[in-house]
């Protein structure tokens, strides 16, 4: 029907159905699926994401495209390349009627389809508040802050309950690129230095977090889900995403149009900023405000890894930390040790953890406190 049929650049046989944004290669559906999986495998191997056989690893699962593709790919790769790890789906129930209850049904089906255990952790049980109730109280503006802080801890707590210390999230290349741009626009130097890391561990989380899809384009994830006919759920959160992020997102889409490799190129740039760029002497950090929390977090994670018994479980974090140690000794002015939250006993750099501060403000009749959203968007 179409006059100008392209042949697949890899197998040279089938009709090309996909243009790869990374390099403009025109390939067929089968070669695409193969190359997509191979790249995730390469990412896993080169970054040593699964260092220990026999380990149980959680996949943060929302029922959306990214986490569904992550689970499907990992199941296939684990069988093909024998990583020797066991995956568990870990879902958060934020308590958003008409959004999360539907998507959780998808996750439950996924658990059956991929033969993985499923654990659901509810905000309700953890904090005594569902997001529906939070929005009722604080309104729609700023509710994403609550959700973000709650979720970060919820994933950790869910994993802890399962006796798991490694969580995989579905962040894709577009997410990382967007976060790099956003952190520049926000002037957030400490986070800029970490957002492109494939593996992170921070002061306030005992967990290792990895992003095996970090080099996968959003477009390719959607294509993969489509060609593999994966069962995923897609609705915008009813409480709408952050406006600022939308801005960086549309910028990214515009860039992708003129040079499709841009997304990956930004990730690459971000990685160059990760390594050892921040010299604390140059950091305007030291005030007790929240903004610098991540900066202290780096130092703190060093403290954590030094006394932690499971430091060998944290290769990425230890690397990062060992550098900070060097800087720290030359600087010497700031030290921060990790403690536990006085309210909930959870790890925290402050006397009371962010989640508890937020819960307190909700439980009181006072207007809500301002807390800076920590970390990347944890939409897993």
């Amino acid at each position: 029907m179409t006059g100008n049929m392209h042949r697949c650049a890899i197998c040279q046989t089938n009709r090309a159905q996909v243009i790869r944004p990374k390099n403009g290669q025109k390939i067929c559906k089968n070669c695409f699926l193969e190359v997509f999986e191979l790249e995730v495998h390469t990412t896993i191997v080169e970054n040593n994401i699964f260092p220990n056989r026999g380990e149980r690893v959680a996949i943060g699962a929302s029922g959306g495209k990214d986490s569904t593709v992550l689970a499907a790919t990992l199941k296939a790769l684990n069988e093909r390349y024998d990583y020797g790890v066991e995956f568990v789906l870990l879902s958060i129930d934020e308590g958003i009627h008409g959004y999360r209850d539907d998507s959780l049904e998808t996750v439950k089906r996924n658990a059956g389809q991929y033969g993985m255990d499923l654990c659901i952790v509810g905000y309700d049980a953890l904090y005594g508040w569902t997001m529906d109730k939070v929005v009722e109280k604080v309104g729609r503006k700023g509710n994403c802050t609550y959700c973000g802080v709650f979720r970060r801890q919820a994933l950790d707590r869910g994993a802890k309950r399962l006796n798991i210390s490694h969580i995989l999230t579905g962040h894709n290349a577009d997410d990382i690129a967007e976060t790099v741009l956003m952190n520049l626009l926000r002037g957030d130097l400490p986070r800029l230095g970490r957002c492109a890391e494939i593996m992170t561990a921070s002061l306030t989380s005992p967990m290792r977090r990895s992003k095996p899809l970090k080099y996968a384009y959003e477009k390719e994830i959607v294509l993969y889900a489509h060609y593999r006919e994966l069962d995923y759920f897609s609705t915008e959160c009813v409480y709408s995403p952050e406006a600022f992020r939308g801005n960086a997102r549309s910028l990214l889409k515009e860039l992708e149009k003129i040079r499709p490799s841009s997304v990956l190129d930004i990730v690459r740039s971000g990685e160059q900023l990760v390594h050892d760029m921040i010299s604390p002497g140059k950091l305007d950090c030291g005030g007790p405000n929240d903004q610098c929390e991540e900066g202290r977090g780096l130092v703190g994670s060093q403290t954590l890894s030094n006394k932690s018994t499971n430091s060998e479980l944290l290769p990425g974090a230890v690397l990062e930390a060992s550098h900070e140690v060097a800087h720290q000794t030359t600087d010497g002015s700031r030290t921060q040790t990790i403690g536990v939250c006085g309210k909930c006993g959870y790890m925290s750099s402050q006397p009371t953890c962010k989640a508890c501060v937020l819960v307190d403000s909700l439980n009181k009749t006072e207007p809500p406190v301002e807390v800076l959203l920590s970390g990347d968007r944890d939409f897993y």
Partner: protein
Amino acid sequence: MEFEITMADIAKLPKTAAQNLCKRCKLNPPEITMRHEALCRDCFQIYIRTKFTRHMEPYRVKKHSKTTKKLLLATSLGVSSTVLLDTLHWHRALQVERARRSEYDVYVVHIDETAVTGDITSTTNPSNNNTTTTADQCLEKLKEKYTQFEFVKFPLEEIYTISESTSTIEDIISTTSGLSIDQTSTSTSTSTSTSLIKLRTLLSSLNSRASQIDLINILRTRLIIEIAKQRDCEAIFFADSMTKMAAMVLAEVTKGRGHALPWLISDGPTPYGPAKIVRPFRELSKSEIISYTTFTSLWPYSIISKETATSPQRPPVKAKNQTIDEIMLKFFDDVSNAHLSTNVVKTAAKLEFADDRDRIERLGLCEICGLPMDEDPRVRKLKNVVRVDNGGGAGGNLSDADARIYCLEPPEGEEGLKERRCYGCRRSTLGAGKINWPVNNR
């Protein structure tokens, strides 16, 4: 109720009157609101000049200095360039007035790219060609106004001859259509056109307008640096505003040059040579510079008309032919939030790579952009860690991660390219084959 005058209203009255005067001198009516402060044009001018003067510390008149420093001012003939010219002129005149001599001389260089950008630049609207000033007209006007400065125009293709030539600067000028010599001279037209053919061949081998403009930007910078070297200029002045620099940071990040960010935007020494880079307008926004141009009636001295500079939307470029640099400039135009550009520039300026020196020594400079080479992040990381590796052989696997993860395969027969060309330059020259690159890193 609304119309009742209360005591509070009365108390406000004299204050309100005061608010109608400039916040700083409290004498003149304000004409511009700047960072929440209403200023008159005189105080605004002082503000601009103060910001500028902070960068002129090394060029203050010194009692015992014997030689006059040579400064190169790079001008695009755009609004910021002209304001910088005007400000430098004021600064130097003040030195002469107060000390009867100046610490420096200014050598103004314009790089003429029209021979190659004529067909690929679509930001200028061809329909009002008859009303726009040409570069030559503009240079003539500037020459008449700023008689203390020396003006020279170099065609971009000069880069093919300047770096290999051992000739003196006078020879070089004579091969250009520079203003300082007889413009009718055509004796050197053949050598110029050979260079031009080389340049055009290079640009036409690139796969997009985005890549072409990227390399033109690099060539322009490198030509300016070569000129500074030959002319013994100790500093190169660029008129980049904060807005422009923010766009530049995001554009270079988008092109995959995150590793070179500190070198791209920091003032001071460069890896290429003795001349320092100075950007005295790095704290000023584009709109502040535009206001200054209006207050000081500098519009006739810029190649950009006031209408073009102040209209929010540039003439539409076919979406797919836009460049990364243009998209970023437009982004900062559209958001018109000065905080964002401040954030970007300040954050990028704080970046510091602890292993930079070491990296230059180990890896050298990129043959295209001349900035330090990058390294696969995983390789960098491994080098810095005492790794207990149980023979996984990760190092071997890592070597071609660029190809396997970033899909940046080296071209056929050019496997060593990765060692000579940084990631961003490999992207911009992707598919170009063997290219004839005019400059080298000495």
